[in-house]
């Protein structure tokens, strides 16, 4: 008599596999750096719903309440939790509103620069030959430029506006992606499945987009997360110099600049927006580092 029950065996196997999957899931969830993620979501929320949740109108000036200190200091009021600037505008509201600018610019630049960089990496790495030589020399050129100086000059010339800032930083920011991703493309190019795709007469465009691109997405995401922080710092630097998003809009960098002259009398004007930048960028960096370890074991040594 055979005592073999295929259904039961299979069911048990599936159960065991499910349990493994569950354990793995749990480990991933436990590993997620929750604090940075929460901070990023908070600012994202502020960026999207900023206009609805600000306690005061971020643009409204109130000279009677100018330079009100934060609420715990003498003379502060709970109406303006973090104090007001020299025009009596509420700093907390302006920080909430300013999140939209920093994040919009950050995401837009990362998307454009990442797309351009990935495209150049695919063309350069897969096609090789003179295409590779030309594209990589251009990449080297972009990498060896003093980018901030050039961004400043370009911003001055094109005129300070949100679209120009995005354009400038995307144009100056793709080279890093291209350099790293090209290496990835070269590595994947030698794999067997690419050879099989060639044998199956897949076109070059198809191989690049359907076979190679999905394999470099992980690296792309890691690079993009890390670049998001850098872009936000650069955007705020340009705003600080007065070359970012123009004044009545509350950009974090220009808020810091506003407080610079008032430092002796009102420390809070410069301090808070800087802390907002610090929190967002730190979160991006932590998340990027975590993703790097998770998605790309090769980078663990770095």
């Amino acid at each position: 008599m055979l005592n073999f029950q295929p259904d039961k065996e299979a069911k048990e196997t599936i159960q065991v596999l499910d349990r493994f999957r569950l354990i793995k899931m749990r480990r991933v969830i436990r590993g997620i750096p929750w604090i940075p993620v929460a901070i990023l979501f908070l600012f994202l929320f502020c960026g999207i719903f900023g206009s609805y949740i600000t306690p005061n109108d971020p643009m409204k000036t109130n000279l009677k309440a100018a330079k009100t200190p934060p609420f715990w200091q003498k003379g502060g009021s709970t109406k303006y939790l973090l104090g007001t600037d020299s025009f009596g505008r509420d700093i907390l509201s302006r920080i909430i509103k300013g999140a939209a600018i920093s994040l919009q610019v950050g995401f837009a630049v990362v998307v454009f620069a990442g797309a351009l960089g990935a495209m150049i990496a695919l063309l350069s790495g897969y096609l090789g030959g003179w295409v590779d030589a030309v594209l990589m020399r251009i990449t080297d050129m972009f990498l060896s430029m003093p980018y901030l100086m050039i961004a400043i000059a370009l911003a001055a010339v094109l005129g300070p506006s949100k679209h120009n800032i995005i354009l400038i930083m995307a144009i100056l920011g793709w080279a890093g992606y291209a350099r790293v991703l090209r290496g990835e493309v070269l590595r994947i190019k030698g794999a067997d499945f690419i050879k099989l795709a060639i044998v199956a007469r897949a076109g070059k465009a198809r191989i690049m987009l359907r076979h190679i691109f999905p394999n470099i997405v992980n690296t792309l995401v890691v690079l993009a997360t890390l670049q998001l922080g850098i872009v936000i710092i650069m955007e705020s630097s340009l705003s600080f110099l007065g070359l970012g998003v123009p004044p009545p809009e509350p950009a974090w960098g220009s808020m810091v600049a506003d407080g610079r002259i008032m430092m002796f009398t009102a420390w809070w004007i410069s301090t808070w927006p800087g802390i907002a930048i610090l929190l967002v960028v730190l979160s991006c960096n932590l998340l990027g580092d975590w993703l790097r370890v998770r998605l790309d074991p090769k980078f663990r040594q770095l």
Partner: protein
Amino acid sequence: MFLLAHLSGDPALLMASPDAKPEDIEALRVLLGLKKPLHVQFWLFISKAVQGDFGTSIRWGKPCLEVWLTRFPNTLLLGGAAITFTLLIGIPTGILSAVRAGGWFDNFGKAFALAGQSMPVFWVGIMLMLLFSVILRWLPTSGMGSWQHLLMPAFTLGWYFTAAITRLSRSAMLDILDSEYIKMARIKGVPEILVILKHGFRNAMIPVVTLAALNIVTLLNGTVITETVFNWPGIGRLIVDSIFARDYPMVQTCVLVSSALFIFTNLIVDILYAYIDPRIKYQ
């Protein structure tokens, strides 16, 4: 760069006083060569630039290169001080972190480097001013003069660089401490402090020094912000000031000369790299 500079507005209008007559403005345009077609202006600019003539600064009324040269030593001084700061702080921190890897000092250093890299330079500068000039009243807020004026700008400029150097010297030292000859030295009974300083330190410094040299040029980026924050009369502030004065020959000169310097230094360091570290060979 040149073409874009022309889109930013008519410099003749900016230079002339508000109540100037239209024919005066016209005369000024002729004087500045703004009436010639764009491609002719461009050709004139390039051919003169190669000969070292970058035109005359609209705001200063002096040759651009001359203005650039008077400001450059200040930037050089600031950069030198920043590098000194960086190496003095970064290398010891990195080595201590590596020697006690995983200890509290290491973790503290890591956290500090991570937080440091997430702060915008201008904010760091302002916070330093707040602490040392406003609250403690130890240092002057801005300007140039005594050595006290140099401390905060140099520290601010070296801020990012310090984190990089710390991480680099930590990982280099960790690699070295793991090697066979360090184990050999320990087996021989060499005191630990000598193992670290004599056998470890010397070898760990090879990649640190070369990469420090490679990264020196990135300091140039930071000068624009740092010099603006601290009112330091160097190239960085010259660019920003010239931008707001629409002094486009000056902006052009600064960006061109500084970029050329930047790329040239990169090249020199790349070549020297192979000499400093004989293990690296270019094909």
